[in-house]
């Protein structure tokens, strides 16, 4: 920026009046930049998993946050934000709703703001599903050599759980299936299994429970054969670089959403009962599993 200004200066140096004007500009610019910091939007990463790529819901949530925080809010969604803490830190987002908290690498760069309650508990689990038509497997062990679908390659949820179980059963998690593919969305895992593209898949329990109600035709073709142990629900975290005031305001807002009619309506659409402060201990099991898999 300064280089540019210098170039401009060279161009204009012959005109003294212009030069004087430019000097004033150079003096004012840093001030303007400082002032603009408060005008920049708050960037919040929203994983498609938590809100199931419901763009209306994501935008309504964004608008809600914007109006309550009295500050412009930018929602960064799927494609730009890959649901992870690392991504949040690298992309310099202010806040994010991540599914891999706590990430050991960035543990000290983030603060836990809030955790959602699903059916009264701050935890989630995943289902192991198989196609009713193409396989007769009744357990994970019988899916050897199958084609398996995951939503994404995140160290959490179904992907973590299935591989951990295989490891515990003495299998090589990376060689057990003939082929593994990622659909990017939990709904598409169900679809892939229903269509027979994959023999089995791992899907988030919250999203599956929603789909049973909204898309029974699809879920009817699929059978749940096991449920994973529970793990901590996706956490709302703040970047240390974010404005502490904003972080405090957002935390208060999230925790109070279930007391606000409009917030309650949004929570209902997210299938979340409420946001609670959360506890880092909830995530210990996940950390252990990752360690066992050699990913920590």
């Amino acid at each position, binding site marked *: 920026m300064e280089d540019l200004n210098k170039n401009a200066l060279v161009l204009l140096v012959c005109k003294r009046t212009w030069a004087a004007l430019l000097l004033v500009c150079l003096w004012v610019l840093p001030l303007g930049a400082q002032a603009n910091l408060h005008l920049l939007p708050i960037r919040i990463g929203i994983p498609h998993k938590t809100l199931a790529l419901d763009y209306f819901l994501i935008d309504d949530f964004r608008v809600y946050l914007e109006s309550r925080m009295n500050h412009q809010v930018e929602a960064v969604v799927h494609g730009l934000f890959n649901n992870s803490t690392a991504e949040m830190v690298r992309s310099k987002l202010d806040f994010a709703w991540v599914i891999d908290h706590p990430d050991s690498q960035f543990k000290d760069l983030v603060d836990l703001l809030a955790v959602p309650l699903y059916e009264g508990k701050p935890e989630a689990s995943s289902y192991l599903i198989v196609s009713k*038509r*193409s396989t007769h497997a009744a357990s994970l062990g019988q899916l050897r050599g199958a*084609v398996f679908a995951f939503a994404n390659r995140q160290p959490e949820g179904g992907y973590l759980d299935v591989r951990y179980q295989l490891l515990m059963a003495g299998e090589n998690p990376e060689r057990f299936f003939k*082929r593994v*593919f*990622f*659909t990017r969305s939990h709904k*598409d895992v169900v679809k892939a299994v229903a*269509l027979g*593209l994959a023999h089995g898949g791992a899907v988030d329990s919250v999203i599956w429970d929603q789909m049973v109600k909204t898309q029974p035709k699809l879920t009817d073709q699929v059978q749940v054969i096991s449920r994973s142990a529970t793990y901590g629900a996706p956490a709302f975290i703040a970047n240390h670089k974010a404005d502490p005031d904003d972080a405090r305001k957002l935390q208060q807002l999230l925790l109070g959403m279930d007391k606000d009619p409009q917030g309650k309506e949004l929570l209902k659409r997210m299938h979340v009962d409420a946001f609670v402060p959360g506890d880092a201990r909830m995530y210990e099991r996940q950390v252990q599993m990752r360690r066992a898999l050699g990913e920590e």
Partner: protein
Amino acid sequence: MMKRFFDLSLRYKIPIWGSFLIVVTTLLVSLSLVYKAYDDLRESLLVTSASLAHRLADDLFHPLMEDDLWRAFDIINAPLVASHAKDIQKPRFILVLDNELNVVTSTDPMLIPMGTQVSQLTPEYSMFVQRIAESRKESHPTYDMQDEKNFYIAAPIVHDGFTLGTLIVVHAKDDILWPRFFQILIHGATMGVIALAILLPVNWYWAHRTARPLVLISQRMRENDLEAATEVVDQLYPYHDELGELFAAYKRMLIEQKDKEALERQVVHSERLAAVGHLAAGVAHEINNPLGGMLTAIDTLNAYGTMDARTAKTVALIQRGLKQIKETVGALLVEARVRNRDLEPQDFEDVRALVFPQVQKKELQLQWNSNLARAVPLQANQVRQVLINLLLNAIHAANCRGVVECRVEDQQSHLVMWVENDGKGFTPEQRLHLFEPFSPLSKTGQGHGLGLWVTYQIVQQLGGKIDLQQNDGRVRFSVTLPLEENKSA
């Protein structure tokens, strides 16, 4: 059977032929259009399908390269999703083969799961793949093949010359081509029916117009009603094409024949009149000679004999009877009298004056036209008698307060006279015996029924001609007398 068809009346044959030709033409045109539409449809299906295959193959390269199976499936599944269900180009299914000819993914994974060898599929695929392999050197963008059920279109999944596999799009003819073809067929049939609905009535009308005069004429000919046949020709076909000329020729022929018949009738009539005249004259002469003697004898007896009252009375009776016979016979015997004098315009005025009391009696309107301004070489008393006879007849026949017209024209070589009245005309039966003595038409009236007979005889003697014309409720006797011939005579 065929003979029976050709024996049919033109009334049926023309429309049937016309309809047959129209139906055949419409059918041929519709069928060729349907065939063309079907061909176009097939062609456009192949073209759009090839472009679809090409596009999908382009999109598939990166997902396949990155081993992103779901993305690859999403790409090939997109053309088949329900929202495009109405699209006629919707493929039956799409599959992706790798370079080892294993199925990477297909839109129906249940049917064709991942890893299936092409050789495990229906034989068409192996054939198709082999054909693609053979023609690969020519680097076609797409390949196509069809069997009786499906179209197969393939495109290589290639980027910068690096080939990852082959995309095959399969279209079911049952799903796409046949429904569309039937749609086209129904469309074609509808158009055909509309064309028939327009053309058949037009054909029927035209055939009717052409056949009707022919049919009517042949019908009249069968009934031997030539008069009616002529009318048919005039009214029903006023055009000048070959048919019109034929009708005109036919009409001419009819008229000529009619004229000929009329002439023959006239000749027969004249001959009969001449024979009757001859007979009458002969009889009259034979009667006249003894009659003259008898009358002379009675005159002598009256002059010199003495008779009592009764005898005298008887003789007078006989004398009166004989005189009547003499008058009658005299009337029958129209003798060429000695020419006394030429006819002058004054003679017509005299005739007018003579008949005028009769005219007044019936309160008739007498129209008199004469352009005769010179004396003509005709026997005045004979012409006068002719005119008087005709006028008295006309006055007698005319309606009360009706019209009688007399016209005399001097045409240099001829003198034409005609007498017209507005009375009842003659029936054809009456006309047949018109100029005969004691003819039936005079029986109801006064007189001895010899008026027209005498008139005819006089006109004959003068070398002229007498005719009767009836039209517009008018009865006209016209007399034409030659002047020159008479002069020379």
